[in-house]
């Protein structure tokens, strides 16, 4: 390997990452790596705290999808209490979860990827951002802002604030939905639905301009995982884990999410703080079948999560407009097989927005939605609680072990984005190999490679939660800010 190109930092994604491209003597891409460079250690520093605090703390893992952590954390708390939360509380949580899906997907499509899709992958990097979009396509930008705002407003109406609301609790939620806010949501819905329709037209209209991207951006077989309803429908708050392979075979039809450890393992590589979750049965099959071997072949257990995976694993969406779109979406792949191209994460995201808006409309019409019975009270009744939900970026797991006083003894979090780590690496390599030949590299090419990451809309401050054998530098500063001593340990 004669030359390494580093993209540092990867921009228009959430969190800190770099990409390395390794070129051989002929200037061809031999390998590529996506490095996640931040580490936070939530799992470890939460030990010794009360599980009641966890929604508030873990929401701060991520400012884009705090609601997902609120959901998974509160659900783990429900399990520790051993309660069935009041039906209205579950409906209200779903409402907020869909609100978040709308805002987060709108952000990804309009604010983060929109500049590539509308201004062009090779456009001036100084302009290639949401401000540039505002200048060149003010109407589209305004639509994006307003669609995201719909989701943020819904979260704020329920939880009192748009980012990090302290509203979900073990046992339910803190505040009911008022009649006034319910009418407000109804008034805001038609515009949000219109904008989503426009976004779908915009994207589908652009497919012709993105033939290469459609063919080459993360197009490979993999497994897909997501929650489905007991009937097999698209699901974001509860449900069963389903795993499907690239031929459309169902490997796990509906596993209780609390049993996730039976199928998921996590690998580690020295060049990223982000772990590599994998589907254990596939990794085991790739080896001799012994479970100790699974880790050696973990790459064979690559699976994708998030919008593309969810629309691939479900049998139907369950709402009319989203189902119509889903039928059209399915034509992108041979009959009965999942859509394997990560470029279509964009499309899947818009279908999910549509579905969420339709569900929100149904739910606010439910007479029980303004009921005031929204919280079950109990003590610690179970020492283990597992809470699972679908974050915008994929399946999210919170597992808490507590003592009789509810003090956390052990915490395990499996974050949506991490589960796409193998696929993101593969995608980066595929795009780099396609665009870079003979060592010639342009800014636009590098941006295309970054777009390969943006497809997954990763959330990296979420992902790197685990504590490990970390390298350390101790720097001691004097009062005037001068470096007095520096101690490094590997």
């Amino acid at each position, binding site marked *: 390997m004669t030359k390494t190109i580093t993209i540092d*930092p990867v921009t228009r994604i959430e969190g800190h990452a770099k990409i390395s491209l390794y070129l051989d003597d002929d200037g061809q891409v031999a390998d590529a790596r996506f490095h996640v460079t931040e580490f936070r250690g939530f799992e*470890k520093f939460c030990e010794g705290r009360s599980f009641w605090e966890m929604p508030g703390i873990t929401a*701060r893992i991520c400012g884009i999808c705090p609601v997902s952590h609120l959901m998974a954390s509160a659900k783990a708390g429900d399990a520790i209490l051993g309660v069935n939360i009041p039906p209205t509380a579950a409906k209200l949580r779903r409402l907020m979860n869909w609100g978040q899906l709308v805002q987060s997907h709108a952000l990804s499509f309009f604010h983060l990827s929109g500049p590539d899709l509308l201004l062009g992958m090779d456009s001036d990097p*100084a302009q290639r951002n949401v*401000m540039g979009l505002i200048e060149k396509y003010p109407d589209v930008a305004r639509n994006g802002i307003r669609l995201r705002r719909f989701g943020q407003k819904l979260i704020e109406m329920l939880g009192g*604030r748009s980012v990090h609301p302290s509203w979900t609790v073990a046992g339910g939620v803190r505040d009911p939905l008022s009649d006034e806010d319910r009418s407000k949501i109804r008034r805001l819905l038609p515009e949000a639905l219109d904008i989503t329709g426009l976004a779908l037209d915009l994207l589908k209209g652009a497919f012709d301009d993105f033939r290469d991207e459609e063919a080459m951006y993360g197009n490979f077989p993999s497994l897909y995982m997501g929650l489905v309803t007991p009937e097999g429908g698209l699901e974001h708050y509860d449900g069963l884990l389903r795993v499907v392979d690239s031929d459309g075979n169902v490997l796990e039809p509906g596993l209780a999410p609390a049993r996730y450890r039976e199928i998921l393992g996590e690998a580690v590589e020295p060049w990223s703080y982000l772990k590599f979750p994998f589907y254990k049965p596939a990794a085991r099959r790739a080896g001799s079948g012994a479970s100790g071997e699974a880790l050696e072949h973990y790459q064979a257990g690559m699976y994708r999560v998030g919008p593309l995976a969810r629309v691939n694993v479900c049998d139907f969406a369950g709402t009319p407009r989203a189902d119509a779109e889903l039928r059209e979406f399915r034509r992108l792949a041979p009959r009965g097989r999942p859509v394997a191209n990560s470029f279509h994460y964009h499309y899947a995201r818009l279908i999910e927005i549509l579905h969420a808006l339709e569900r929100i409309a149904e739910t606010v019409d439910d007479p029980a939605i303004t009921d005031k019975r929204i919280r079950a009270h109990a003590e610690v009744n179970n020492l283990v609680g597992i809470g699972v939900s679908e974050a915008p970026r994929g399946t999210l797991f919170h597992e808490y072990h507590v003592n009789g006083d509810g003090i956390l003894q052990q915490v395990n979090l499996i974050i949506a984005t991490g589960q796409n780590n193998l696929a993101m690496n593969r995608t980066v390599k595929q795009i780099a190999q396609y665009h870079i030949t003979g060592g010639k590299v342009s800014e636009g090419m590098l*941006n295309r490679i970054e777009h390969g990451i943006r497809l997954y809309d990763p959330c990296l401050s979420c992902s790197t939660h685990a504590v490990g*054998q970390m390298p350390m530098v101790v720097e001691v500063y004097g009062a005037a800010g001068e470096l007095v001593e520096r101690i490094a340990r590997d």
Partner: protein
Amino acid sequence: MHKLRFATAWLGGCSGCHMSFLDLDEKLIDLADKIVLVYSPIADVKEFPENVDVTLVEGAVANLDNLKLAQEIRARSRLVVSFGDCAVTGNVPSLRNKLGVDDLLTAVYHEGPGRHPTGGDEIMPRLLPKVLPLHQVVKVDAFLPGCPPDAERIWAAVSALLAGEPVVLEPNMRTFG
């Protein structure tokens, strides 16, 4: 009209402060008339540029990359704003500070086929032993607390900065959390 050279950056945080910035919603469209966004995680400039008028910095200083960026920001910005509780106090990221260096070192990754991330090369930054608020690393000109500061608070600060006035927040806009 002279447009302000405006930047935003994130260090060790959750991006929630940036999300709150985007909650300015349609005010962003007004802002596009008054500023040039010269650097931001939501834009594509890779090097922090020279001659920046105002930089909002989200997040605490948690690793060597954060430290380096904080120093570049300071050297190249006229005004640096500590944006949100993580930057102002260390907040949630600093919860790891109660774990001594040794505790962190002895805790291990659950399992792995190869070596653990080691950092220390050009790619993977080393962690600082303690997560620090921004002002312990560089001089800060204004503080904008909140986890995150809400859009109204951000707008109060940004409008003052646009007008060339000092950031003076009402007491109810100076709360944490």
